[in-house]
């Protein structure tokens, strides 16, 4: 089970025009979509938001993944809907608020579906975020699959010793987690200790401003994308703000 989760967590790089864009362009695009989603105030505008999100998602061949993410946030959306209704908002208003939330989720997801953790790290470096922060981000993502493998092996080992995790009353079930969580934490600590040694051995912190082998470079496609994105967005946002 943990194995499947580890697989799901992995970023899948697809060769599409959207994946190939400079991560900064993808970030800008996401910010634009986010702004549209946030400002949408009626069902027509919301339909436009989904269309605007749908185009890059389709180009990135990631519509299905995006829909899956939206489906996951559906429960939460329904809660928003229920709360709104409860506080006496009219049906239409509640629907608009709920759909707006879904639009925001879809818009932000475009970035994470098309941008690898590696590219996110580049963008973080480009923004000159503190080195420790960027490094912590990178390693925590990098080690997710590793810890998932640890988890699988620990669960296998304890089940082989007769542990039946989903048996008994709720209290018992929580107690059943102890033989899994303790080795997981101990292993994570051991790993982070070794990680710290290896960082030190490779000169981490030698200079206050480390360099980067790769620099982010805007290519023709990126400028082309901006040429389409900026006017289209400006048009939409003026309409959304009611200035059109």
């Amino acid at each position, binding site marked *: 089970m943990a194995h499947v989760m580890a697989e799901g967590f992995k970023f899948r790089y697809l060769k599409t025009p959207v994946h190939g864009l400079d991560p900064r362009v993808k970030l800008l695009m996401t910010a634009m979509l986010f702004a549209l989603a946030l400002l949408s105030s009626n069902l027509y505008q919301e339909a436009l938001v989904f269309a605007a999100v749908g185009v890059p998602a389709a180009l990135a061949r990631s519509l299905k993944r995006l829909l899956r993410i939206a489906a996951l946030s559906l429960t939460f959306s329904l809660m928003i809907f229920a709360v709104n209704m409860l506080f006496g908002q009219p049906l239409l208003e509640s629907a608009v608020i709920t759909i707006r939330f879904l639009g925001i989720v879809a818009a932000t997801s475009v970035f994470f579906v098309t941008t690898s953790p590696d590219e996110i790290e580049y963008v973080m470096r480009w923004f000159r975020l503190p080195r420790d922060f960027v490094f912590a981000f990178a390693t925590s993502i990098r080690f997710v699959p590793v810890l998932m493998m640890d988890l699988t092996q620990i669960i296998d080992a304890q089940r082989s010793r007769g542990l039946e995790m989903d048996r008994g009353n709720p209290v018992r079930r929580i107690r059943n987690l102890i033989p899994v969580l303790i080795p997981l934490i101990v292993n994570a600590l051991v790993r982070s200790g070794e990680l710290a040694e290896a960082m030190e*051995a*490779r000169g981490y912190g*030698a200079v206050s401003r480390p360099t980067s082998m790769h620099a982010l470079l805007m290519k023709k496609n990126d400028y082309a994308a901006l040429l389409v994105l900026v006017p289209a967005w400006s048009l939409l946002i003026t309409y959304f703000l009611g200035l059109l």
Partner: protein
Amino acid sequence: MGKIVEFLDYTFEYSGMERPAVEGVSFSVEEGEVAVLAGASGSGKSTILRSINGLIPHMYPGRRSGKVTVDGADVSSTPTYELARKVGFLFQNPENQIFMFTVEKDVAFGLENLGYEPEVIRRKVDWALGLLGISDLAKRSPSELSDGQKQRVALAGSLVMDPKILVLDEPTSLLDPRTAQDVVSLVSRLNKDLGLTVVLVEHRLELVSPMADRMVVLSGSRVWAEGSPAEVLGREGLHEVGLSPPAIVEVQKRLPSGDGLALDVDGFVRRFLADVGHRV
């Protein structure tokens, strides 16, 4: 040539421990040598290795006396990032020393830390990848690699900093025999081609003793023996200090004659046949 690593009456006790991890240790490694550090678990091998690249005492506090000199620098007064240029360190588990999402980016990590120019980093990274035969893996994610490939990536990440000394802490213990042999042969090649001094810890003595110039055996925190592998493995009492000499050495020790030990089967057979032929 000369002493590139030197321990002089060196004692180290980790804070909070009741007895020293190593005590009164003196030995040295000549430039360009392959030195094998052997001994049972807990004999102090890891402490010695970490005292070469300055993790001890800079990262681990403790009580210390005596002196460790590496390439002319006193380890205790040299910052670890300075030592990182001199000493490459390969740990047992490659998984925990690969930080980045792609192979080439990880190999670049050390040079970025030292603030090299991007073009220089690019050139050195390409060189290191080529040296270890993993240029084709440059853009791959570490999680897609086999154990042997991961160990090569980690090795590239050390060598890219152009160290004079390579320190390896049980680099093959998680690998299968063939992959382990590959890594050991690779290290031997680097020693010959680059003149790299190698200090390594390894339990499988049959794997490393044929390529070693020097062997240092630790027992109970102290140096129990030091010399050429043939000298050291020829001694009595190895089992008592927790070492198992290669089977071929054990066989030779039970034979009546014998001047000097052969460290692999081929060497032994050649010598034995010559010896027998001689007496006919």
